[in-house]
Structure formats: structure tokens, C-alpha cells
């Protein structure tokens, strides 16, 4: 991820980077926020994806979609807290293999989410409670859950593969 290193270095030199190294609380608060944000994101995806996959198919599909903005809020919390981690130690993350895979998977999850929203959303909201979704939509939902599970695991592995 060498192409991102100048950006990481800039973050490290920024006020956020300086403050996060000076304060004993900014990093641990960002970590806690990162856990909470991922819970918001993952919880929302459990509602949406398990409905689409069919495991929880009596969840109202239209209402399940209301969790999309919650997932985005969770993602935004994690983007900001994640940027804080990089700012606190800009040399640490770029070379980390677990970080590289995690970022790659987050991008794939993002593309998968875009396909879900622009390709499947319109048809899905017409589903009655208990009605099965199209196979294609089920695959997208299952892929979404699997990617985020691996993202969680990779994130936890980052400190151990340095």
C-alpha cells in the first residue's frame, strides 16, 4: 500500500495525529468507537442480510431497509476512528498484511453493497413478509455477511502480524 503512504504521513503530521499521540485517551476512545460502529454496521447487516437470505424471512423487508442508514452511520464512525488509528501511527498500518486484506475486502463489500442497493433494492422491497427473495439477491446478502465476518477477524489479527 505504498501509494497511500504519503496520505498516511500527512495524517500523522496533522493536528489529529499529534493530538492522538499526546493524549492517552484518544486512541482507546477511537478503539471503543470502532467496536461500537462495527456493531451498528454488523447488526444492521444481520437484519437486512438474514432477511434476504431467508433465515429471518418474516422480518418486514421494507423496514429492514431502514437499517441501511444505520449501517452507513456505523461505517462512518469506523472510517473516522480508523483514520484516527492511522494518524496516531502512520508507519504501522500500510505494511500490515492483515490491514491490506481488510481494506481490500472493505472495498469489495462496498461494491457488493452498491450492487445490492442499485440492483436489488427495488425488487426486494416488494416482498411480502415470509416471501423468498431471488437467488441472486440471496447470494449478494450471503457474500456481504461473509466478507464482514472476515473483516472483523482480519481487524483483530492486525496487531499480531506486524
Amino acid at each position, binding site marked *: 500500500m505504498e501509494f497511500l503512504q504519503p496520505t498516511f504521513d500527512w495524517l500523522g503530521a496533522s493536528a489529529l495525529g499529534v493530538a492522538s499521540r499526546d493524549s492517552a485517551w484518544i486512541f*482507546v476512545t477511537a*478503539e*471503543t468507537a470502532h*467496536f*461500537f460502529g*462495527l*456493531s*451498528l454496521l*454488523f*447488526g*444492521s*447487516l*444481520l*437484519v437486512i442480510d*438474514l432477511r434476504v437470505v431467508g*433465515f*429471518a424471512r*418474516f*422480518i*418486514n423487508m*421494507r*423496514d*429492514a431497509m*431502514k*437499517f441501511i442508514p*444505520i449501517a452507513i452511520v456505523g461505517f462512518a464512525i469506523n472510517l473516522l476512528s480508523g483514520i484516527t488509528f492511522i494518524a496516531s501511527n502512520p508507519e504501522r498500518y500500510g505494511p500490515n498484511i492483515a490491514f491490506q486484506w481488510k481494506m481490500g475486502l472493505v472495498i469489495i463489500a462496498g461494491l457488493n453493497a452498491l450492487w445490492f442497493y442499485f440492483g436489488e433494492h427495488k425488487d426486494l422491497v416488494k416482498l411480502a*413478509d415470509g416471501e423468498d427473495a431471488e437467488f441472486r439477491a440471496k447470494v449478494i446478502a450471503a457474500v456481504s455477511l461473509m466478507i464482514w*465476518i472476515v473483516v*472483523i*477477524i482480519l*481487524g*483483530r*489479527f492486525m*496487531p*499480531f502480524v506486524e
Partner: protein
Amino acid sequence: MDFGCFEPVGLVCSIEMSPVGQWVYGYYGNFWAYPAILSAHGLGMMTVMGVVLAFNMRVLGFANNISISAYDRLFMIGWAGFILNLVSGLLLLSGALSTFLYQGAFQLKMAMILLGGILMKVIMNGIRSGRDEKMTMLISAVCLASWTGAIITGRLMAYL
């Protein structure tokens, strides 16, 4: 070999020094065990907290076309996450028992999980028996705060 367990109570040290406790922290050269168990604990946490968040948001009035009974399947997933975290948590605890047992953050975390878990049941019972909605929403807010506190104190365990 002394791994630094200075706990005066023999039982605590013998658990920490047991093969399980030692294995968890990779003393047999199995360095993958600790990050693997931590990952399981992270995944279980997101699952439990995710279901707790989604359910309580519904109780607090969000997305209320979802029938409460439709959450049954999500609760199954939530329980699976909880069991995963009970097992991985006990493993993580076993290898560092003398550190965590007397740590305020750990004790508070356990209390908050207990309270949060009981309140989930209280909320569900309240909905089924048609208790006053305002009361249920208040309990739901306390439940959310308790689970959030469990995440905060859990993270602090690594620092205190």
C-alpha cells in the same frame, strides 16, 4: 518456570498455570491461539451487540413494521454469538485469571453483561404481557447503555 502469577489464592494461580491457560497465551509456541480466540471474541461481540442494537432500536420505535416475533431468528443468532463469547471469554480469562479477576473494568463488564442480558428478557416479557410502552422504552434505553458500557469496559481491560 514462573510466569508471574503472584495471586495468594492457590486456585486462581493453578487455573492460570493449567495447560489450558498456558495454551491460550501461546506458551507452547502456538502463537496463533491467542489472536484466533480474540477474533472469535470480537466476532461474537459484534453479533451480540448487533442484535441487541437492532432489537432495542425497534423497541424504541425505529422500523416498527417489523413484528417483534420476527426477531426470534435474530435472537438465535444473538445467542450463538453469546455462547461463542462465553467460551472464548472463559478461555481468555483462564490464562490471565489473576490479572482480570480483581480488575474493576472486568468486574464492571460482567455486571453490565448480566444486567443487559436480564433487561433483554424483561423487555421481551413486557412486550408479550402488554406492559406500559413508556416503561418498556425506558428499560430498553438502560439495556442499550448497559451493553455499550460492557464494550467500553471490555476495551479498558486491555489498558488498566
